[in-house]
C-alpha cells in the first residue's frame, strides 16, 4: 500500500528517556503523518507511555527532539488532545460540567463547548450520564469520558494511551468505530499491547520493546513480510530440550517454524492441507499433542517473529 507523499506533523528524532539506569525509551525516531492513525504496539513496560508523555510535554526527554512543524508551545497545547492511560477526571463534576470546563480552559466559547460536550457524550454513549458526577461512573464509562475530554477542544492531534483498556466488549466496538470515524479529520497516535486493536485501527504500526522501535510499517505489510497465509499453533507436552530441538530441525526443512515454549508456530499458505502431515511427524518423533489451532496470521505473530517471545498482557 503506498501513501501519497504525506505531510509530517510530528517528527521525532533520537528520543531517549532514562530513569536512573533504566533506558525506558532508547533512541527512537519516527514520523507521524497528518491524518493517519499511528499505532505504538508493545508489551507492558515497552516504553509506550513514556514516549507519549514526552510527546505531550508531561515528561522531559533525556535526549532527542520532538518537532511539531516548528510550532510554539502555546499552539501545540491546543493542537494536542490527550487521553492518558489512567483515567483522569474531576470526580466532583458531572460529565457535562467537566467537558465544558475543559473546553473553556482551551479558550473555546461556552456555547461551543456545550454543543461539543453534548455531541461527544452522544457519540460515546454517555448522553444519559451527562448529569452524573464522574466519580459515580463505571470503569468503562470513565474511559469513554476520558476520550471525550481529550477531544473537547477539537484538537488536530489525538493521543490515546491504551484507549481500549478497561472497556467491556460492547463499548470496545463503539470506541473503535468512534476512533475510526475521527481518523479522516485528525491525526491519531494510539498505544496498545493488543495486536488486534492496533491491527484493526492503525494505518501504520511501530512495534516497540525494551524502549526500542523494532519495525514500522502498515499492519498489512507487517503481516505479509512475516509470512503469508495461515498460522498453525501446536501445543505439545514438554519433552527434553534435545528431543524438541531435533524435532524443530526436522520440521524446519519444510516449514517456517518458531518455537515459543511448548508452542510450535508454523506459518505457510494453505496450511489446512498440511495439518495432517505435520501432526503425524510430531507424533512419530514421540511427542504428545495437547492442542492444535489453525488461524490467520496476526500482528502477534509479527511480534513473536521479531522478538522470539509472545506478548503477555
Amino acid at each position: 500500500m503506498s501513501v501519497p507523499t504525506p505531510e509530517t506533523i510530528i517528527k521525532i528524532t533520537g528520543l531517549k528517556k532514562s530513569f536512573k539506569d533504566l533506558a525506558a525509551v532508547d533512541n527512537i525516531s519516527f514520523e507521524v503523518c497528518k491524518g493517519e492513525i499511528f499505532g505504538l504496539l508493545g508489551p507492558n513496560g515497552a516504553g509506550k507511555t513514556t514516549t507519549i508523555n514526552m510527546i505531550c510535554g508531561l515528561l522531559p526527554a533525556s535526549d532527542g527532539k520532538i518537532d511539531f512543524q516548528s510550532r510554539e508551545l502555546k499552539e501545540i497545547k491546543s493542537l494536542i488532545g490527550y487521553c492518558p492511560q489512567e483515567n483522569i477526571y474531576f470526580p466532583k463534576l458531572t460529565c457535562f460540567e467537566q467537558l465544558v470546563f475543559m473546553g473553556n480552559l482551551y479558550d473555546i466559547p461556552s456555547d461551543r463547548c456545550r454543543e461539543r460536550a453534548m455531541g461527544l457524550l452522544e457519540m460515546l454513549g454517555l448522553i444519559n450520564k451527562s448529569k452524573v458526577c464522574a466519580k459515580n461512573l463505571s470503569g468503562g464509562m470513565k474511559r469513554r469520558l476520558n476520550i471525550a475530554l481529550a477531544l473537547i477542544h477539537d484538537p488536530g492531534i489525538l493521543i490515546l494511551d491504551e484507549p481500549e483498556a478497561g472497556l467491556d466488549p460492547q463499548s470496545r466496538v463503539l470506541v473503535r468505530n468512534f476512533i475510526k470515524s475521527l481518523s479522516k479529520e485528525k491525526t491519531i497516535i494510539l498505544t496498545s499491547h493488543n495486536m488486534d486493536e492496533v491491527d484493526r485501527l492503525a494505518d501504520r504500526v511501530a512495534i516497540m520493546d525494551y524502549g526500542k522501535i523494532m519495525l514500522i510499517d502498515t499492519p498489512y505489510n507487517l503481516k505479509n513480510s512475516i509470512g503469508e497465509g495461515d498460522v498453525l499453533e501446536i501445543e505439545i507436552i514438554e519433552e527434553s530440550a534435545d528431543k524438541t530441538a531435533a524435532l524443530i530441525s526436522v520440521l524446519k526443512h519444510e516449514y517456517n517454524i518458531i518455537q515459543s515454549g511448548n508452542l510450535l508456530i508454523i506459518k505457510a499458505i494453505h496450511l489446512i492441507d498440511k495439518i495432517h502431515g505435520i501432526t503425524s511427524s510430531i507424533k512419530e518423533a514421540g511427542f504428545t499433542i495437547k492442542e492444535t489451532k489453525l488461524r490467520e496470521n496476526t500482528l502477534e505473530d509479527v511480534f513473536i517473529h521479531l522478538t522470539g517471545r509472545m506478548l503477555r498482557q
Partner: protein
Amino acid sequence: MKLLSIIIKSLKEQWRSFWILILTLSMGPFFIFVYYLIIETSKPHYDVAIINNDKGYILRSEPLNKGEEFILFFTGSVKDSVNMPFFIKKAHDKTDVLQSLKNKKTDALVIIPEDFSEHLVKQQDGDSTTPAEIQFYGDLTNVNYLLSALWANETMNSFIKVSTGSEDLIKISETGIGTSSNISDFDMIVPGLLILSVIMLMFTATIAFISEVENKTIIRLKLSRISTFEFITGITAVQIIVGIISILLTLLTAVILGFEFHGSAAVFILIAILTSISMIAFSLIIAALTKTANEVLIVGNFPLFLFMFFTGAAFPFRSEGLFSLFGYPVTLQGLMSPTHAISALNKIMIMQMKLGDIIPEIIALIILTVIYFLTGIILYRKRHMTLK
C-alpha cells in the same frame, strides 16, 4: 473567561465537598461557644447570705425595720452596677447557712442583730452608747469571703451614713479605665477567634489546591491553556468567599452570645479579606509541600497550632518586640499574618480605633501575604504545574 470557569468549577467542588466545608465553617462558632461557656462558668461570683433578726422599732407610732431596709439597699446597690458579681440571698436558718458556707455554696453570712433598728434610731438621736453588732461568718482563708465581706461591710457603712445622715470623713472616687471597663473577658477573646475562623481556611484552601494534584487533573490543567496564575486566582476567589462566610458566622455566634459589634463594618470586611488572602497564600505553600489531602491534614496541623497559639487567635498572646519599626513592634510571631489581623481587629473592635490607626497592621498583612504568595506560587508551580 478561563478565570470565571475556574471560579465556577471551584465553587461547585467546594460546595460538593460538603463535610470539609462544614468542618471549616463550624470551627469559629464552635470556639466562640466553648469560650463563652468557659468564661461564663469561671466568672467571679459571690454569694452573700443575710439573716435578718431585727425586731424593728416603733418611732412616733410608725413601725420600721432597718434590717429589711438594709437588705433592700444592698440588693439595690448590686443591681445598680451591672458588673457587680454579688448575689444576695435572704436566709432564716443559721445552721443551714453555716453548712452551705462549708460547702462553698455561700461565701459569706451576715447576721443583723435584734436591736439593729433600735440602735440606729438612738444613734440618730445622738444617744448611742454601744454600736450595733453585725456578725460576719465565713472562711477567712477564702478570697471569695474576703471580697464578699469587704463589699458587705462597705455597703453597710454607706447604709448607716444614709440612714443616720452622718458625714463622710473622706471621699473615694473610682473611675474605670477608658472603655475597657465595659468590656468583658468574652469580648476580649472574640477578635482572636474571628481570625481563627479565617485561619481554618488553611484546610479548605490547601485541599482545593492539592486535590488537582491528587486526582492528577493537574495534568489536564497543565496541558490546557490556563496559566498557574489564573488557576490560583480562581481558587483564591472562592476561598475568600468561604473565609468571609466563616468570619461572619463566627461574628454572628458571638453577637448572639452577647458580643457588641463596634467599629466600621467596611474595615472589618477589609481585614477579613486580607487575612483570608494571606491564609490562602500560606495554604499554597503547604500545597506545594504535599501531594494528597491526607498529607495536608497531617502537615497542616503544625502551622495551625502555631497560628492558633502564638498569634493570639485562641488566647491572648503578648510578647516584647524584637525592635520597633516606625513605632510598630516587630516580633517573631509577626511573621505569621494572623498576628497583625488580630491586632487590627482588637484596635477596631475593642479599642474602637479607626482605619488610620491600623495602617501598620494592614501594611504588615499585605507584605506577608505577598511573601507567602510568591513563595507559594514558585514552589507550587515548580512542584506541580510545569510542562517540560
